[in-house]
């Protein structure tokens, strides 16, 4: 059963189509992310689900009931805003009780519910604090508590980590995931940060220019992207442009622009010989040393980028291309300028038709 379903939703602003025929379903109790660059229409989509915008076509269903004709204050989806939108004129307790009061809950029960939800987000006893007295992470949790106390069908989160500094953001990713488990509520999370989407989600939809390019579990998006956009947007990758020389059983030999050629698996699309393509290879798919004939590139170490487990070696190939190579140990003993050979299995390189743009 789906908690939230969108069917061919379309939204236009004048001549600009912000959301162009989007359909998806969010299974009950799951963490679903919409990942896309800014301006791709993800915020518009979320605002339609919350009821602040009205779609031009399509349907939005909550628990399989259409909510198109429900005003925003009648929909049982709650939203954590980008800058949280905690009410500065109220203290923490009043912020959380706001929705309960609007709903007309009995006064007696409200205090108890506020206390309980504060316990669950790990901030017991802060009812009387002012919003300005809270830290960034605490505000985050209060914003979630304010929604969760109303037991929504779906919780919408609009890039809520964007305003936090890096360290706190990393921490909050894990905490959000735990909160979602704890409340067992369906989360719909919007972000432009692929690592947030990959870490937390059960399913991720990659959105581009008003459309969903691909929906799937994070691993599937990462390993089997269906388009060049997804391959380039999700995770780190090397990307080169070229043209297919020869095509045998779904494996293409691609002549790269600027010289050299590589083997790559074609995506599930209709590529032909002489098609213009982009080749994507993840840094961790590139191994150091000589491999099978045809897939080895020689070059020199251009620079070493140390970042702990995410360290990289930048290799400048003989044809002048820069290749990012994962260096998990960070201790391969190379120095800048050293000659180096790299190779990868043809299966680990993917090629997609180059976008017209």
């Amino acid at each position: 059963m789906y908690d939230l379903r969108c069917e061919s939703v379309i939204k236009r602003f004048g001549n600009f189509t912000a959301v162009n025929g989007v359909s998806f379903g969010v299974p009950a109790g799951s963490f679903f992310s919409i990942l896309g660059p800014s301006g791709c229409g993800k915020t518009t989509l979320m605002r339609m689900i919350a009821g602040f915008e009205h779609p031009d076509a399509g349907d939005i269903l909550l628990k399989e009931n259409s909510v198109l004709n429900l005003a925003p204050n009648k929909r049982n989806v709650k939203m954590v805003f980008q800058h949280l939108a905690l009410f500065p004129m109220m203290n923490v307790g009043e912020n959380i009780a706001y929705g309960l009061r609007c709903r007309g809950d009995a006064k007696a029960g409200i205090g108890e519910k506020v206390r309980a939800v504060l316990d669950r987000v790990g901030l017991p006893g802060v009812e009387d604090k002012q919003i300005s007295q809270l830290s960034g992470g605490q505000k985050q949790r209060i914003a979630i508590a304010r929604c969760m106390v109303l037991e929504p069908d779906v919780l919408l989160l609009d890039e809520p980590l964007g305003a936090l500094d890096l360290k706190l953001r990393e921490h909050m990713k894990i905490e959000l995931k735990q909160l979602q488990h704890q409340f067992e509520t369906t989360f719909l999370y919007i972000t432009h940060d692929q690592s947030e989407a990959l870490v937390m989600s059960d399913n991720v939809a990659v959105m581009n220019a008003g459309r969903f390019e691909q929906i799937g579990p994070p691993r599937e998006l990462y390993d089997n992207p269906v388009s060049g956009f997804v391959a380039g947007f999700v995770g780190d990758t090397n990307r080169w442009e070229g043209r297919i020389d020869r095509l045998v059983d779904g494996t293409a030999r691609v002549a790269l622009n600027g010289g050299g050629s590589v083997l790559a698996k074609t995506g599930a699309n209709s590529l032909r010989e002489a098609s213009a393509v982009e080749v994507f290879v993840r840094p961790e798919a590139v191994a150091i040393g000589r491999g099978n004939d045809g897939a080895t590139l020689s070059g020199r170490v251009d620079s070493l980028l140390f970042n702990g487990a995410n360290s990289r070696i930048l290799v400048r190939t003989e044809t002048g291309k820069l290749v990012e190579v994962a260096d998990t140990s960070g201790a391969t003993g190379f120095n800048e300028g050293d000659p180096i050979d790299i190779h990868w299995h043809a299966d680990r390189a993917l090629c997609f038709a180059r976008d017209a743009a």
Partner: protein
Amino acid sequence: MKRANRSPFLNAVYATYIVIFFLYLIAPLLAAGVFAFNDSLFPSLPWQGFTLDWFFNDTEPKLGMFHDERLLRGLGNSLYIGVIVSALSVAAGTCNAFLFVRRDFPFKNALYVLMVVPLVIPGVILGISILVFASMIANGIDQGLGINLTWLRPGIPLIVLGQFSFLTTITSLVIAARLEKFDMALEEAALNLGANRLRVLTTITLPFLVPALFSAFVVAFLVSFENFNTTLMLVGSDAPLTITMYDRMVKVGSTPVLNAVSVFLMLGSGLLALLSVIVQRDRT
């Protein structure tokens, strides 16, 4: 840093100039204030000793302001007019602020200029134009229907309308400035949490505007209280304090009771202005 660019001599000249300027600013207020406490029948030197008679004495010739029937009536009228006109102009100003900050409509820029225009119409002109227009309507109704609408003749209702006509510009600008700083996400968040429009307005938006509403009210009240030019043209038998004072000044000449009223006005408006500054500072 800039100081380093100047010679000490120029610095001293500049500082002296500033001191002289503030002396110039304060001198007449001081002069008006000090003689309220001089035990003399005229507000002039020599100093005859300190007294509070000009405030509290209840017999002629030194009738204090708090026992002067006409001044007290003027004060009462001023308060009455001030409260009504401030309330009205704050209400209208709030509507205007929402209109120009939140809504889009044709000719918005032109209408915005229209909203500002009353500030650049001389007060005397506002006064006579409203006097003339009200009289034209009143005459028309009188001749056509035989009903005499006294409130369209000079008097407190016309004073209220006259002051309202330019105070609304001021209150609109003050309130709009605050409303522009409002984060729309707060309203959406409240809607999302289940509040209806009215509830959003009363629990989120208006509380946010309260400091601006308050200071708009105070500004409107003070400007109304001290207004002379517009009021002069519209005044009937119930004169507000400034008109009463002016009459006294022209007919009786200056007497220390006017100094006493001046002190009272300075203290009152000073306190109100201070209050509005404090409220603004607290809440922002």
